[in-house]
Every structure is written in structure tokens, then in C-alpha cells.
């Protein structure tokens, strides 16, 4: 089983640290560069004929929404790996992804609300997509709260991993049911895009921004995972030092 073997090789924390030592600076540079290019393009894009300058919110809003969902997928895959192969690195990675996902989801909700105020004339509507994202945000909060609710961090990690898999099964059901509920309550959608197709002058900056958000997420995810690993190592060293000196610091 060559694939399993490879997977296990990369799951080794020491190897992960060595590999990311090389990868992380490049990823960070790619994130900064693509964000800079994307932002310049976003501000040079022509204003929409209906929405005016507010259309620029989309360049943050849409990538944030995409990342909010992608983070959950990453978290769930890492959780599944942690439950199946019991690799501590997968646990650490899953927990490192959760606050990032919650952050992107919150960013999506806030920018959506800011965009909705001038466009729809209200800060919030119970639109199907908004509601789904709000529930996704709640799921992230539940995951983070559960992971930190135990005195034994390993138990918290396991419980949270199971919860994230339960969430994966439930997310399509929630999305579908919210759509149904919304069509029952609100016959017409108020969302108006510029037209059936997006003009290249808007599409190109959007794609660059989406790419930039991917890089930002990957760089931050690796950084958070590394930080958690280092912190665990410091804790172990501290305990060992305390045991060796025979002093009870508790």
C-alpha cells in the first residue's frame, strides 16, 4: 500500500516541520503577492452599472464564502484521518483549521450584511444562502467549544472530530432544508447580480482574490499547526524539566 505509506510519512510531525520550513515562506510570499495584485485589480475594476462602487465588496465576500466552506471540508478530512489512523498531527491540523473557518465565515456574514444594507435596504434577510452560512458559523463555534471543553485535550480532539463528521453529513441536509424553507416563505429572491454572466473585468479580480484567499488559508493553517506542535513540545519539555528538578510547580 504505497499511498498509505506516503500518507504516514507526511503525518510524522518532525517531517512535517522540516517540509513546512521550506514551503511556508513561499506560500506566505504567494499569499501577499496575490492579495496585492488582487486588491489593485479589484479597485481598478469598473463600478457596476446597477450597484455602483459597492460591487467591490464582492471581491472579499465571495472568496470568504468559498473559504468558509473549504475550511470545513479540510477540517472534516483531517478529522476523519485522525479517527481512522489516530495520527496526532491530523488532530492538531483539524483544530488549527476551525478558527480560520469561523473567521472566514464571519467575514462572509459581515461583508454580506454591509453589502446588503445599500443594495437590499436591510442589514439582514433570511435568504437561504445567508441562513446556511449562519448555521455553518454556529457549527464552527460548537466545534471549537467542544474541542476546548475537556480537561484531557485528547478527549476533546476525539469528540470534536466525531462532531465535525456528523456536521459533514448534516450540512447538505441543512442547506437543502433551508432552501426549501426559504422558497416557502419568500417567493422572490432579491439578489440581483449584474446579469446572467459576469463581465471579465469583474471576473478576473474575483478569481485572483479567490486564489489569494486560498494561499492565505494554507499559509495560516500550516502556521497554526506548527505553532500547536511547538506548544505541545514546550509543554512536554516543561513537564520533563519539572520532573527532573523535583519541584512541584502545579
Amino acid at each position: 500500500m504505497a499511498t498509505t505509506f506516503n500518507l504516514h510519512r507526511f503525518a510524522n510531525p518532525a517531517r512535517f516541520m522540516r517540509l513546512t520550513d521550506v514551503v511556508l515562506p513561499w506560500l506566505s510570499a504567494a499569499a501577499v503577492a496575490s492579495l496585492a495584485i488582487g486588491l489593485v485589480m479589484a479597485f481598478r475594476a469598473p463600478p457596476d452599472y446597477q450597484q455602483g462602487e459597492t460591487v467591490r465588496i464582492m471581491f472579499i465576500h465571495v472568496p470568504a464564502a468559498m473559504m468558509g466552506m473549504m475550511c470545513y471540508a479540510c477540517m472534516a478530512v483531517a478529522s476523519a484521518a485522525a479517527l481512522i489512523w489516530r495520527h496526532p498531527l491530523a488532530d492538531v491540523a483539524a483544530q488549527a483549521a476551525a478558527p480560520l473557518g469561523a473567521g472566514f465565515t464571519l467575514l462572509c456574514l459581515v461583508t454580506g450584511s454591509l453589502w446588503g444594507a445599500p443594495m437590499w435596504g436591510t442589514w439582514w434577510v433570511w435568504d437561504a444562502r445567508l441562513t446556511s452560512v449562519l448555521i455553518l458559523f454556529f457549527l464552527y463555534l460548537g466545534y471549537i467549544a467542544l474541542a476546548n471543553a475537556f480537561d484531557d485535550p485528547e478527549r476533546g480532539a476525539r469528540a470534536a472530530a466525531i462532531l465535525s463528521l456528523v456536521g459533514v453529513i448534516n450540512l447538505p441536509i441543512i442547506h437543502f432544508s433551508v432552501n426549501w424553507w426559504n422558497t416557502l416563505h419568500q417567493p422572490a429572491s432579491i439578489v440581483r447580480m449584474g446579469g446572467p454572466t459576469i463581465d471579465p473585468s469583474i471576473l478576473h479580480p474575483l478569481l485572483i482574490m479567490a486564489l489569494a484567499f486560498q494561499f492565505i488559508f494554507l499559509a495560516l493553517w500550516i502556521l497554526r499547526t506548527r505553532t500547536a506542535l511547538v506548544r505541545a513540545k514546550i509543554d512536554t519539555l516543561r513537564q520533563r524539566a519539572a520532573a527532573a528538578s523535583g519541584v512541584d510547580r502545579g
Partner: protein
Amino acid sequence: MNAFVALVHRDLRLAFRQGGDGLMAVLFFVLAASLFPFGIGPEPQLLARVAAGIIWVTALLAALLALDRLFQTDWEDGTLEQLALSALPLELVVLAKCLAHWLVTGVPLILATIPVAVLLNLDLHELPMLLLSLLLGTPILSLIGGVGAALTLGARRGGVLLSLLVLPLEIPVLIFGVAGADAVLAGRESQAQFLLLAGMLAAALPLCPFAAAAGLRQALE
């Protein structure tokens, strides 16, 4: 199967001898539902319009009340470890406990819906539909709750955490439960909603005990 029935029996006996949980849930349900007229005003038309929603939301909250003790006492006194060692698979242990939880809180809630529906001026044509939607929906609440109770076993502030985890997952049940009951008001067919609710129950019956048993195994490790 004998062990399964015996376990349900034991939980029911415990619930009846100790009194508390089911009665408390019903009392909370009736009280909370009767707060709404004070909050939104006593106009009969308004109440009739929102009655099914109020009943569903308060039933959902009431079903949460006893959940944090679903495995807690058995876990504390070691019974849960004995059950895990017994020949009965842990998945069936969870299913038995969820069934007992539903019989103790879900069924009384469905019965208490009738007087609450009268208080809230619910359309009497809608009542059978509401009861049917609760009959299909409350077992799902017990099953999803079982997963939450297993995952939060031994957690700090387990009760509050449990509701934080379980409530978002229960939103689809709420949506289809209310939609199924309210379809009569709008003069629509409600068969689709009931089929979907039944489908969710059919999916939750095997999946939730599986997830909850996985959670319990982590807690017992």
C-alpha cells in the same frame, strides 16, 4: 434483543420512580409556550398563525432539558462501562437509551401539545397534522440529542455546550415539522414534508447511534 428490552425497561423504571425529567419537560413546555401570548400579544388570529411554530420551537427546547443526564449518571457510577462490556453492542445501548428518553419526554410532549394548541388558538384542522409531525420529529430530536450527550460526556459546562452543538443540527427537523403542520393553513399538500421527516428519521435511526457509540467509546477509553 432481551437485553435491549431490559435496558429500556430499566431506564423507564428509573424515570418513573425518580419522577422528575419527563414531568419537568412537559411543565417547561406548557409554561414556555404560554409566555408567547404575553410577548406577542393575545390576538387570536396572530396566535393561530404562529402556534405551530411556537409549539415546535418550545418542544425542541423542552426535549433538550433532560438530555445532559442521558448518559451522565450511568457514566458516573460505572454502569456505562458494564453496559459497554456486555454482549449488547454499544450502538444498541445508545438506541435503547434514546428510545427511553423519547418515551419519557417525547410522548408526554406530544400529549401536552393538545391543551397547548387550544391555549394558542391553533386551527383544529391543523392539530392532527401537528401531532403527526411531532410524532415523526421528536424521535429524531432524541437521536440527535443522544449524539450530543455522548460527545459532551464529562465536559465542563456540558449542559450549555450540548445545546450549542445540538440546536444547529436540529434546524432541518424544525423546518419540515412546522412546514408539514402549516401546510394545511395554506391549503397545500403536506405529504412531501412528512415523507422528508420520515426519511430523516430513517436516516437518523442507524446513523445517530453509530456516532453516539463512537463518542461513548472515546469517553470510556
